[in-house]
């Protein structure tokens, strides 16, 4: 009873579930359920978060006796529909059954040869709007580690496992994204030598000075502190900035399984104003997989602060 009630609720137009989701997979599910010429034996959905795409696989049996339409329209913005025979000529691709029409794809049941009874439909689609993820999965990450710890927890859990189990034989959400704001400001500020900071302050004072005597005095102090630095201050600062490039920064984080590192970029722009070039946090994206057998997942991101500290120190030592 419960299962049926839930199915109806998913399929009812304007129902809570329909309003919540923008997932084309849901639409495909509805079309196949309504198509009387087909009997759906199994359904599998795979959503790939980074690619904003999904694949719907359905094993269907032809209902030749049914007084149903011989054409099934998929009025959807799908990328591709492929059909394979599961009958005598196993896995033969039946391209001529699918026709691209102005508002989507059409499946011609009447063109299927009589010896074919079972088909595998593979529908690939793009998901323009991934906001439905918020309705199906709860993701949380640590705002910050406690004390001297350098580890951030990450956690994902499916909100409505039953509705997926009722509808799909296999359902998976690949590479669910997690954004952790890794605070790096302590390592950045503590690893820059004091004499370098002093040099920057002198430069500031020199730029702001108006009196001739003071300008002369500050100029001497700037050139003296410049000698202590060794390298070109601008190029040292540029090298420091380079560490926040995603390709560089990934060396400073370690993500434990079943999560994996995906990307990083400068974070917290709105808090950092006006210093967006040097971030206080790096937004590190990690990913994990959820499916019907793994409805929840926990992981850990370790920020290798010592390594970053040493890397920055090296820039100023060289």
């Amino acid at each position, binding site marked *: 009873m419960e299962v049926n009630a839930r199915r109806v609720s998913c399929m009812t137009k304007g129902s809570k579930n329909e309003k919540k989701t923008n997932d084309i997979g849901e639409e495909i599910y509805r079309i196949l359920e309504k198509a009387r010429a087909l009997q759906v034996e199994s359904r599998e959905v795979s959503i790939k978060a980074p690619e904003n795409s999904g694949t719907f696989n359905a094993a269907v049996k032809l209902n030749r006796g049914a007084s149903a339409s011989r054409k099934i329209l998929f009025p959807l913005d799908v990328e591709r529909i492929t059909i394979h025979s599961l009958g005598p000529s196993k896995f033969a691709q039946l391209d001529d059954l699918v026709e691209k029409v102005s508002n989507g794809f059409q499946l011609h049941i009447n063109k299927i040869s009589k010896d074919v009874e079972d088909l595998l439909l593979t529908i690939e689609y793009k998901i323009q709007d*991934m906001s439905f993820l918020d309705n199906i999965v*709860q993701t*949380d990450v640590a705002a910050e580690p406690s*004390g001297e710890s350098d580890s951030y927890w990450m956690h994902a*859990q499916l909100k409505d496992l*039953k509705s997926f189990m009722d509808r799909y034989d296999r359902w998976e959400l690949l590479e669910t994204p997690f954004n952790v704001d890794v605070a790096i400001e302590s390592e950045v500020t503590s690893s820059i030598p004091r004499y370098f900071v002093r040099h920057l302050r002198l430069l500031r004072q020199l730029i702001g000075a108006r009196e001739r005597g003071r300008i002369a005095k500050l100029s001497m102090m700037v050139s003296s502190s410049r000698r202590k630095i060794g390298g070109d201050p601008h190029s040292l600062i540029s090298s*420091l900035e380079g560490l926040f490039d995603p390709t560089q920064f990934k060396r400073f984080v370690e993500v434990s399984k079943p999560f994996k590192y995906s990307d990083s970029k400068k974070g917290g722009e*709105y808090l950092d104003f*006006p210093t967006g070039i040097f971030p206080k946090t790096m937004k590190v994206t990690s990913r994990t997989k959820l499916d019907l057998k793994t*409805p929840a997942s926990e992981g850990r991101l370790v920020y290798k602060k010592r390594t970053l500290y040493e890397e920055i120190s090296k820039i100023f030592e060289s």
Partner: protein
Amino acid sequence: MNNYAKYISCVWISLLIILPIKSIYIPPYALQGEDVPGHIIWSSLEFKYLKIELPEAMSKKQLYNVRAEMVETLGNTIIVRNAAIEVDGYLGMLFSSRKVENPAVKGRIQFSFMGENDIILSKQDREVYLFRPKLKLGETPREIKVDPAKGFAYDRIEAEKNDEGTLLLKIRSARSSEIQVRTPNSMVEYRRRLVKNLKEEYADVRGKYPHYSNFFDKYISILEKGWRNQEDLKTLKEFVADTHRITLENREFMEKFVMALLNGYWRSQRFLSLPETLLRYIESVKHKKIWLARPENIITVGPKPRILKLEMMPSDLLLDTYDTIKVRDIRIIGTEAGEIEVAKLFEWK
């Protein structure tokens, strides 16, 4: 059954039962005010109900894979009947934590799987450490002499922060203060040019995505106004939530938005040199994870003493609001007329 026999049967059943519980996860720590997620995975476990006992600072926010109407919540105890579980073997959990007087508390969440006659089949607990930053003022001088040429204050206000959590801090002057905290003219000019450049860079994006104009306008408003009061913190929080929503909703727009911002910032760099940018960054970070909002803000001083009434607005990485800390009135005397960064009046501990 006498008590001893009951105890023995509990131990025996618990030993048999412990294996079917595949995992109970609760994160080891959280910032006070942060949501605390968790889950339990089990298999082949015949129980009548699950009792979850939460510490004082936590409450239930949401349970997943349950029929909500069959879950009872009595104070800090949650009872989940077996029949409430939709798919056997999984319970998803989301708890709220709140800010409490103690900035570092250890809470224990107890999970008891109960059988017939209230026999405990399995009892496990997980500890969660809840922390938050806390700032308190120490010695505050009645008078501070400052040398604006050297950028030095001869006395300072002691501000002490605990070891936990990042503290975001805005220092402002009270309306009734004779000396007002203000933004240096150079920064006003930089900000004006930056906003102009950002608007120009964003013009094409605005044309293509008019429905997201409010999002950009909110960003500009945050840049222009900064964080002045608790209302602004709320706007910041909304902006963070909007960023998350729009990133999922329309990744293409978000990429264009970020690119427009980057271009705008780069074009504005000639008004704020790279060394100056780094210096401001360094100055915005104080001892023990204190991040100052607008560290460049200054006060104007002179040889004639004037009263400064300061207010400190703390927040944390959740952008939650805390009580404003009022600094007692201080007479400020300058060795000469000039300006000094307000942050230099503090001794950070």
